[in-house]
Structures are given as C-alpha cells and as structure tokens.
C-alpha cells in the first residue's frame, strides 16, 4: 500500500453562533469567534489516499483526477465563501474545523474511485487543525 497526499488551500470566513443558546452563552463559549460579522482563515487541506500503484501507470490514482475532484468539490464550494451562509452542507452546524473536516470527508469519499480516501487534515491556522479518518485506521 502507498499513501499519497495532496494539499490545497482555500480562504473563507465564518463565525460561531448557536441560535439555541443565549447571546451571553454564545459569547462565553465561542469568545471572539462569536463576532456577528465573522472573521476568516487561510485553510489548508491535506488529502491522503491509500492504494496499490497500478501496474501499468505506476499510480495509486491520477493526480490530475484528484486535483479535478478537489477543485470541483472543495475549492468551488468553499474558497472565498462565507461558510455559514454559502455552504449548504454546513447549514445548521457550527463551522468548526471538526465539522468542516467531516463535511469534506463526506464530499470526497464517494468521488475517489481509484484507491480510497484514508485521511484528511484541515488546518485552520498553522497551530490548529482537525483530522478525519476511519475508526481503527492508523492516522499515518
């Protein structure tokens, strides 16, 4: 098995607010992330696909194809967007790293037909990120 990782960047704004909670509770839990006008990040997404290299092409999957999937599913959906208002999959969820990475998993997993999606790592800043992988998988 070989693990292949491709990285993409996108920039987006968001805010953390749960309408089921009071204004004070929102402020207490989410702090400055609760600013009603939002704020933004340069996100970095690392996508790891695992598989056997094809005996003819030597590829686990064609990187051009992975690039196309990432462009179509992630960049077009999230880049230069306000995640709360413009990404339907995040509607009614707080757009934390944890939730965004799960949404991305569910978007990408069915599209990757050569090899299989092994792990995602989504950086919100260089010091904060979330990972997503199957239960029991080694997060290598």
């Amino acid at each position, binding site marked *: 098995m070989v693990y292949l990782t491709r990285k993409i960047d996108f920039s987006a704004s968001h805010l953390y607010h749960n309408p089921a909670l009071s204004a004070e509770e929102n402020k207490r839990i989410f702090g400055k992330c609760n600013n009603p006008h939002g704020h933004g990040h340069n996100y970095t997404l690392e996508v790891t696909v695992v598989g056997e290299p094809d005996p003819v092409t030597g590829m686990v999957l064609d990187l051009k194809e992975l690039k196309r999937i990432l462009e179509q599913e992630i960049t077009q959906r999230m880049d230069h967007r306000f995640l709360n208002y413009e990404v339907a999959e995040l509607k009614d969820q707080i757009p934390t790293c944890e939730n965004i990475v799960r949404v991305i998993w569910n978007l990408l997993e069915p599209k990757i037909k050569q090899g299989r999606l092994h792990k995602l790592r989504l950086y919100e800043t260089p010091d904060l990120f979330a990972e997503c*992988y199957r239960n029991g998988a080694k997060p290598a």
Partner: protein
Amino acid sequence: MSDNLKIALGRRYNFVSSHRLHTAALSEEENYRVFGKCNNPFGHGHNYVAEIYVSGKVDPATGMIVNLADLDAFVEREVVEVFDHKSLNQDVPAFRDAVPTTENVCIEIFQRLKNFPLAKIERVRIEETGNNSFEYAGEALPDHARSDRQGMAQ
C-alpha cells in the same frame, strides 16, 4: 458513514528550553562518545513544538471536541509553564535522573496530559528542531522507560 469516522483535533504549542544529555550511569568518556556535542557540560537549547492530538465526540451544540480555551489552559499549566524558559535537567523533576532526550520529553508530556478530563489525548508529537520530531501515543514502555520509576514520578 460518519459514525465510523474518527475526528481528532491537533494543536501546536511552543516552548524553549535548555538541556544536556548526560547520564551518571556512564563514564565521562562514554557520555561524550554517546551524546557528542549534546554532552557539553553547560547545556544548549531548542525551540520545541508540542503537537497535541485530542479526540472525542464532537458536541453538536458547539461543533467542538473540546473548547480550545480549556485545552489551552490545561496544556499551558501542565506543559508550557513547566518547560518554557527552563533547564530541563535542573527545573523539571522528571529529568533529575532521566536523560532529557526528546524521546523522554515526549513520554513525559504525554504522561502529564493523559488525564485531561475533557477529551482523550490521542498522541503527542514533539519537534526538537524543524528536522527532528518524536511521537508517542501511550504505548506500553519497558521498565527502564516507565514514567512511574524513581525520578519520573510526578
């Protein structure tokens, strides 16, 4: 499908410390042979990075495994305040007897964090420099590396 997924949060913290690799179990010559320039009697320092991975259920009300303010306060108290701008050999009790290699620093930091009450500490990865890093996830250790041995007890 989502129920089969694991979500882990990674957070990086910085601390700067000095250390000297030296063990009383070896002669001066052997120490120098084994540890080379890291055996300099006056010590030397690094900019360390502690990368902490936590996992748990993502709370639907907050979208979070753990509130970052709580994780930051815990790591700040248990690790950063203990290690930052310190001499690992002289200021951190665990290294009075144990050699403060980054392997041992990594194990010590995992032990200090593993009882975090709000989420599971999955693993700890320590960068000693941009080129050297060490990872520990709580695997069983041989007796000589156990954290509860004399000198490592907290």
